C-alpha cells in the first residue's frame, strides 16, 4: 500500500529556535558559502516570524517553519516543469526534485505558491577542509539547479536498505525521521504516514485546530499546521503569505 508522508507542525509549540533549519541544512549538504541575502539564499527549511500586527502588550508573535508543502493535487511545480525534473513519487507522496534533469529555468519557483523552492545561483562552496564534514548520503547540488525539501529522502533510502537487509518489505517508521523532525526540541513537528489513520501525525492532521496554508487554491499540501490562536490560523489564507516581516522581503529567485 502506498504511503502519503506528511507533517503536522504545531505552531503553539514552535519557539523559533532555528534547530530545524540547522539540522536540515547540515543533513542536506547546504553550502555555507557564499552567504546570500533573503532574496537569493538557500534555506530549504525557513522559519518565519509572524505577528498579529498589534503593538505593545497586545502584540503576539509566532514562528512558522516553511518548506515544500508536497502538494498532492495538480502539483504546480510538476505541471510547469519542462524537463520532468519534478515528480510526485506515487509510493510515498513525496514531491521529488531531480537536479540532474533540472535545466534551471525556474518555472517551478514561479509556480510554487509557497516560495519554497530555491535556486543555486553560485557554485556550492565550503571553507577549506570543511568538505570532510559533508553527509555522504546526499549529493552536492550544482550551480544552476533548483532545490527544495525532499523530506530527507536519503534517510528513506537508508530505512529501506535496513528493512531489505532484515528481510522486511516495509520500513520501520522509527527508521525514517527527517532531520528537522529529529532536531525540534519541543516536538512541534510530527511526521508520519497520512494515509494510515492510526498514525499519530494522521490523527493530528484531522484535528479541529489543523489547517493548511492557502488551502483554498486546492493543491492539497501534505504539510499541515496546528494552532489554537485564531490570528495564526487566519494567516494561512493571507494573500501576502505568512510573513508580517514583509512577504516581499523573503521572496526567492
Amino acid at each position: 500500500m502506498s504511503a502519503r508522508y506528511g507533517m503536522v507542525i504545531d505552531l503553539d509549540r514552535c519557539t523559533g529556535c532555528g534547530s530545524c533549519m540547522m539540522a536540515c541544512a547540515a543533513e542536506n549538504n547546504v553550502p555555507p558559502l557564499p552567504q546570500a541575502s533573503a532574496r537569493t539564499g538557500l534555506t530549504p527549511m525557513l522559519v518565519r516570524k509572524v505577528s498579529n500586527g498589534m503593538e505593545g502588550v497586545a502584540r503576539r508573535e509566532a514562528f512558522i517553519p516553511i518548506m515544500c508543502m508536497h502538494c498532492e493535487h495538480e502539483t504546480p511545480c510538476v505541471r510547469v516543469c519542462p524537463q520532468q525534473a519534478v515528480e510526485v513519487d506515487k509510493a510515498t507522496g513525496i514531491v521529488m526534485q531531480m537536479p540532474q534533469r533540472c535545466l534551471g529555468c525556474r518555472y517551478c519557483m514561479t509556480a510554487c505558491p509557497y516560495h519554497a523552492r530555491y535556486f543555486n545561483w553560485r557554485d556550492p562552496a565550503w571553507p577549506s577542509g570543511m568538505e570532510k564534514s559533508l553527509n555522504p548520503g546526499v549529493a552536492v547540488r550544482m550551480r544552476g539547479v533548483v532545490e527544495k525539501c525532499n523530506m530527507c529522502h536519503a534517510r528513506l533510502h537508508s530505512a529501506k536498505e535496513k528493512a531489505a537487509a532484515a528481510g522486511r518489505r516495509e520500513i520501520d517508521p522509527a527508521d525514517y525521521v527527517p532531520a528537522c523532525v529529529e532536531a525540534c526540541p519541543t516536538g512541534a513537528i510530527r511526521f508520519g504516514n497520512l494515509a494510515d489513520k492510526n498514525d499519530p501525525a494522521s490523527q493530528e492532521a484531522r484535528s479541529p485546530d489543523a489547517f493548511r496554508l492557502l488551502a483554498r487554491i486546492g493543491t492539497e499540501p501534505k504539510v499541515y499546521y496546528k494552532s489554537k490562536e485564531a490570528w495564526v490560523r487566519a494567516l494561512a489564507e493571507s494573500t501576502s503569505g505568512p510573513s508580517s516581516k514583509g512577504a516581499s522581503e523573503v521572496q526567492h529567485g
Partner: protein
Amino acid sequence: MKVTRRDLLVWSAGAAAGLMVTPVPWKLLDDSSIWSQNWPWIPQPMRGPVEVKQTCCSLCPNGCGMRVRMAAGWPVGVAGVSSHPISRGALCPLGFGAHQLNWHPQRLRTVRHRGIPSSWSQAQSAFTRACSEGPVVIIDGYPGRAPSSVFETFSQKRGAYRVAVGSESRALAPYESWGGVPSAALGYDLENAQTIVSFGAPLLDGWGTPGRFTRLWAERAAGMTDPQLRLIQLEASLSRTAARAWQWIPLRAGSDSALAAGVARVLLEERLVAARGPMPPLTVSDAAAQTGLTPDAIRDLARTMAARPPVVAIAADHNRAIAALNVVLGSAGARGGLVRRSKRAQPWISADPAIASVRAMLIDSSVPWDFAPQTDAEVFRFAAWDGGSSKADWLLPAPGFLEELTDVPTAPTSAIETFAVASSLVKAPPQVQNAAQFLCSLDSSLSTTEKIIHARCQELFRARKGTVIGQEATPLAKFTSVQKLEEQLWKGAVWVGEPSQPESLRCELKEWPAAVASSHPESWLTRWPEAVLPPLASKLYTESSLREMPEKGNA
C-alpha cells in the same frame, strides 16, 4: 549502386528519426547533465565506513548528549541523545553545525605572539620566565572539569585560580553568601515547579541546558490555556520566551530589582506567604513608578505567583533582589525551587578582568571572548578560534570540537548531579594543545587530564551511588569494576547522582539587599564568541532574518 543526394537526405532523416526511438539521445542528455554537475572543483562527500558514536558536547558547560555520525573517521552529522537525563535529546541550534567548526576559517592553528607567528617552545619559555618573576593567575571558563583541577593545583604553587562563568551561574551567587552553600552546588528544581517567573532569562532561547526546559515546557505548558506549568516572563521586549510564555508583562528595562522588591512587599503585606524575610524598603507605588507598571498589576502578579506553588523566580544574571524574592517565596531550599545538588562542589572566586599585581594571566579556551583582560600582565590566551581583538600577548591554538578528552561535570542549572566523559573522536591537528597539557609539560608533578578522570571514576565507583544511563539505566552498585564503569562512560553513558535534598539549603536574609542596576545579557547568540558560530548558522540566520547576527567574523 549510385547514391543520390535524395538518398542521402532520406537516409539522414531516417537515421535522425530512428535515433529518437533509441535510448541513445536520452542517455547522452542524462550523462551530460551528470557530467556537467560534477566539476572537479565541486566538493564531494568523503567515502568510507559510517558509524555512530555517542558523546557529550563540550562547547559550553551544559554538556548536552550528542550522537555523532562519522564517515571515514570524520564527523558528518550531529543529533541529540534522547536518553540523556538532562538534555533529553535536544541540542541548541548551533550544536547541529558543530561538526563544521574545526574547519572554520578563523580556526587557530599556529602560536602567535603579538600577531606574529611563533612556536610552542617560545611560548613555554615566556611563560616559565613569567612564573619565575611573579604570580600567575589562571582563568577558567568551565570549572569542575579535570583540566580545572590541573589549573587549581598549578595555581596553588604559583598564583591564583579564578573563574569566568556565564550569567546562569552568576545568578546563583547571592545564595552562596546567604546559605553558605557554594553556588556551584546549586540548581533549579524546574521539574517540580508549578509557576516559573523569569526576569528576562531566555528560558526558551538557550538558557541552561536547552533541552531541559524546552522539553518540560512542551510537555506541561505549550499551547495550553491553563497550563500545568505557568511561565511568566517579565521583560521589556517581546523576546522568543516572552512570545511563548503563559503571561508576558513588559516592564522598563533595568527595573527588575524594583519589581522583585514590589512583589515581595505585596507577598509579605498580604500574607500570601509565610514571612521568611525582611520587608523591602520600596513601596508598591515606588516599584510601580520605576517599572512602568501599575500598583494593581504588581499586586496581581504577586497573587498569581502565590496562587500556584511551588514557584521559583529566575534572574537573567546576578541580581540580589530576585534572589531575595525567592527567599521570601520560600523557594530557596524547597521542592520546585532552588536546591542543593552536591556536597562536593567547592566555592570559586570570580575573575576580574582588571586584575592587578600579577606577572602573567593564562586564559583557558573555555573562557568566552567577551572576557577581555584589562591588565598589564602578560596574557597567554588559549583558543580554538580567533574570536576578536581582545588583549592577548600570546594566542595559543587549542583543540577544537571533539578533538580532546575531557570530563563533563554537572550543568550549571541542573538540580541533579551528573558526570560524563567526552572522548576525543577526532584527531587534533599536530600544532594544538590545551592549557592543561601546556601546564603539565612545564610541571611534571601535575596529574594529566586522563589520570584525573580515572581518579574521578574510581571515586564514583567507590561511592556506589547513582545510576549510569547508557543504552539502558544501570545502578552503579551493579558495576563489578571501575574499568567497566569507565568503558560505559567512554562510550557516552552519563552517571546521574541521587535526587537532591531541597532542605539542605537554608538561606538567612537579615535585610533586603540594596538595589543595583540589573543587567541582562544580550541574546544567547551574541554570548557565543562570534567566530565560534558554525558557518551554516551564520548563513541561515542571515538569510532567514530569524536572528540578529554579529557583523563580523562569520564564515
